[in-house]
């Protein structure tokens, strides 16, 4: 360095040392060569294949290859552009994550893993607090083997079919939403029933399922999985769900005379109720269709679900879907749920006479006539012994609550309170329906029912309801959304705000309502939504009257009424 012969720093004599340029050149060559050799060796090396059960904490950040079957997912977060699914081999299960570009590539190439797929993938392990996951390196490091589908009957689905891709046919027997994001559709064929699980992430990725209703015949392809020992069919893609032609029913209607050959099958029967007998755990109705007789056995829990159980009387025409069984030599049909039973026609009607009320002439809302004389009663005198009696009550509405099938009005006549149960199909034809609010005076003719140890009066048609006087209560001012708390549970409130979002669930719509103080979810059951569906839109301002509820730990308002 410099012009010195001897380095004053380290004492080295310059002329006797190895020229620096040789050292520099050697380092350059060795450095380049080393990296080239390393890259060459790396190209030839295989990514290590690892069993999920062998993954341990010291392997954090290791780049590995995994094979297995997708057991859960995909769970899609559109905001974060991430996908999550779970893969299992014979040693364990691991979560797999994809982000941003990788997620988009998988979606665009329709290469998103679904339950039942066999996959081979490469990615980097991430282990945190003993929880292991793997981040997929790139979309082309994921190889999928889609399963082949096999047709199966619902009753035949068993543990051996777990993660198999099967095709079934059935009628839609039930639709429910155990929690937001999952819809369970019960399918029934002639052999049994099975739940089909529809994850909202599938709809987010691929679009909504085709619309369907109770009783529709459908063909579904899905993967069998187990939820706590209960089998279910997990839908992988909306295209796997098809509606069947009306002309090819899944469960056929069978004459009663043929039932002896259908034991343990699910069938549809119809006929006239000849006898009705209660027993400790339910009700047995003997049904006859001129070819034979069968006992229709309705367990108490099914009866409790039925809104019109009181119409199961001698002479009524009934249709039922249920499993055929034999009990003490007698054939029985056992429906599973209320929706399996339909009253086709009530028994032949008798005249109604009301001594006091100005009862309007019957309309054509239902082609029925009352079978008994309606008696005006004070609410305080009604007891359980009055069950099935036709009564007239009059009082002030102290409360109006929505439920999935209609409205429940608490009517107080000064001697007591009773629930007046207005079914949606009845209320639809009531011209003053919007006036049925707290404070209004109502006269109702209907049959007394007992439900959950509570007395109800159930009008059969719109004309059975009469508005005596409108409410004079001053409508409350809307409350700030943020002021709602758990102290308001089950209370009627009025809130006002701007609609931020409208989303579907099986029984109606969820609406996110926002005011200056905050936002809250408002549940509109179908009966409420139908009345406002043409006016309700994102960005619009609405006032909602409803009851504060707690759903999955969060406050919501179940709307009785939506005003604009």
């Amino acid at each position, binding site marked *: 360095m410099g012009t010195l012969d001897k380095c004053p*720093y*380290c*004492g*080295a004599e310059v002329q006797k040392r190895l020229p*620096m340029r040789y*050292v*520099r050149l*050697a*380092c*350059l060559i*060795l*450095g*380049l060569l*080393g*990296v080239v*050799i*390393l*890259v060459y*060796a*790396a*190209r030839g*090396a295989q*990514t*290590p294949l*690892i069993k999920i059960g062998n993954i*341990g*904490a*010291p*392997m*954090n*950040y*290791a*780049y*590995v290859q995994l094979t297995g079957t997708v057991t859960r997912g995909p769970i899609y977060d559109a905001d974060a552009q991430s996908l999550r699914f779970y893969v299992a081999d014979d040693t364990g299960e691991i979560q797999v994550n994809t*982000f*941003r*570009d*990788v997620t988009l590539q998988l979606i665009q190439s329709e290469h998103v893993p679904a339950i039942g797929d066999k996959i081979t993938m*490469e990615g*980097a*392990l991430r*282990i*945190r*607090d*003993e929880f292991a996951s793997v981040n997929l*390196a*790139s979309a082309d*490091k994921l190889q999928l083997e889609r399963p082949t589908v096999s047709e199966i009957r619902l009753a035949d689905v068993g543990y051996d079919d777990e993660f198999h891709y099967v095709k079934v046919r059935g009628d839609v027997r039930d639709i429910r939403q155990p929690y937001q994001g999952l819809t369970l559709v019960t399918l029934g064929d002639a052999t049994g029933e099975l739940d089909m699980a529809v994850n909202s992430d599938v709809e987010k990725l691929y679009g909504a399922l085709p619309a369907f209703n109770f009783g529709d015949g459908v063909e579904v392809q899905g993967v069998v999985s187990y939820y706590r020992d209960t089998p279910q069919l997990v839908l992988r893609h909306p295209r796997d769900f098809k509606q069947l032609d009306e002309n090819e029913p899944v469960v056929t209607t069978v004459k009663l005379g043929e039932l002896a050959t259908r034991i343990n099958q699910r069938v549809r029967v119809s006929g006239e109720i000849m006898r009705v007998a209660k027993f400790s755990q339910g009700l047995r109705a003997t049904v006859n269709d001129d070819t034979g007789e069968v006992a229709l056995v309705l367990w108490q829990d099914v009866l409790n679900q039925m809104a019109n159980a009181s119409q199961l009387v001698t002479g009524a025409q009934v249709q039922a879907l249920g499993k055929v069984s034999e009990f003490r030599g007698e054939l029985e049909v056992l429906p599973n749920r209320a929706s399996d039973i339909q009253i086709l026609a009530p028994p032949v009607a008798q005249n109604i006479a009301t001594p006091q009320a100005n009862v309007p002439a019957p309309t054509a809302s239902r082609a029925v006539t009352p079978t008994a004389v309606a008696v005006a009663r004070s609410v305080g005198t009604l007891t359980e012994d009055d069950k099935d009696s036709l009564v007239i009550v009059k009082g002030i509405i102290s409360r109006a609550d929505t439920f999935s099938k209609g409205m429940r009005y608490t009517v107080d006549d000064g001697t007591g309170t009773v629930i007046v149960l207005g079914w949606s199909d009845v209320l639809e034809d009531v011209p003053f329906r919007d006036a049925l609010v707290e404070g209004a005076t109502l006269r109702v003719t209907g049959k007394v029912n007992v439900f959950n140890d509570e007395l109800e009066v159930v009008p059969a048609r719109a004309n059975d309801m009469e508005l005596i006087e409108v409410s004079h209560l001053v409508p409350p001012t809307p409350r700030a959304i943020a002021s709602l708390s758990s102290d308001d549970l089950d209370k009627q409130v009025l809130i006002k705000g701007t609609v931020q979002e409208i989303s579907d669930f099986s029984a109606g719509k969820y609406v996110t309502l926002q005011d200056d103080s905050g936002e809250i979810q408002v549940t509109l059951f179908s009966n409420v939504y139908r009345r406002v569906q043409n006016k309700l839109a994102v960005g619009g301002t609405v006032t909602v009257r409803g009851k504060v509820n707690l759903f999955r730990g969060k406050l919501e308002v179940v709307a009785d009424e939506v005003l604009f």
Partner: protein
Amino acid sequence: MEYLYLVPYAVVGTLLASTLALVPAMHVYNIAGIFIWLAVSAQKFIGGDALAMLLLGMIVGYAMLNTVSAIFLGAPDDSTVFIVLPGQKYLLMSRGFEAVVLTGIGGLGGILILIVLSPIAAGLFGALRTILFPHLHWILAVIIVYMLMAEWPKGGDRGATRGARLWDAWKGLGAGILTFILSGILGLVLMYKSPIPLEYSFQNLLPAFVGLFAVPWVLENLASSTEIPKQYIPTTIDAPPSMIARGIFSGALGGLFAAFFPVVTGGIGGYLAGHATAQRDDRVFIISQGASKFLYYVGAFWLFFLPTAGITKGGMAGMLATIYAPQGAGLYYTAVALIALCGVLSFFLLLGYARVAVWLVQRVNYRYISLVTLFILCGVVFWFTGVGGIAIMLIATPIGVLPVVWGSRRMNCLGVILVPITLNLAGLGPTVAQWLGIV
């Protein structure tokens, strides 16, 4: 009172680290790795909060004491490498002890900074994380760009022609860029096709860092005929309070920046902070590097305990996070208190160990020390990562020697982590790896 039982664990951790910090190239992550591995494989013979505090004590002790081996034994890691040059300058001026004490003062300042920040840290770092998280990839990219652009040529003044002068200037710069690229490729290979056994993946970078930083220093020591002059152990330190304050402040900026940002090491943080505060004096620089190093190691671990913020940064926290998650504000403030306690303990240990190191270098030829260091380095690499690790170390060593012989920055070797992580954050890691054919 419920956390009082953790004090002995922290103190034991500090004492353990203080012993091991003297061993050249024995990185604290190696020791932590042993403990983590034992905790995992031996049915958690020590686990939970006790393990966490033991590791906390270790990292505090190491952060304070590793300067001794870096300066006296010439075996720095990625974070001490910037202390070593001025530190060795002091060593050759018989003031090695002073250099060590200056870094210790910086470390004490780092403890003060942590205590002052502790009440507001959760909110502060949580908010910073929320704002900056989507931008990490380009922030790392600007750090890389600055590192490369801000390296000024050291030669170029004596060539006869323009071309000769340009070549003289750019050979160093070019070597720097080449060092960055080669170390970046090395990092990418380690990320996707590491020859290190899977069971030791958490030590993936160990052989690379040893080869890029420690071995070149040791080889340089062996090649030169440096004789360490008699060392003077002063009773006072030539550093006025304003200088100490400036150094601590500058180091705190750099250290906290490095503690918070992924991939950024204490050296990079100290380098940036030094530029930002326009340091010129070696003493300020050494103090700032002491604070930066301390806050980088300990700060990253401290962030791990932050309630609600949930920041895992740094090798130690990253390793511990695989088997443990801290809970609650009580544990957090206990950790802060133990950092202070163990930090002060470490400082006093530092004074003692520095004297031991002075005694050692004056009685044992520096070359012998460096030779032993080299053997220890190879042994540590082989113990943890096997033959694959030795191969990586051998490949990394000439890359690490490039800056030494071509006059460029050793910091360019940090491409080994900067390149793969930045590419991955931008979603380009697998793409580039595919270009190289390694994936």
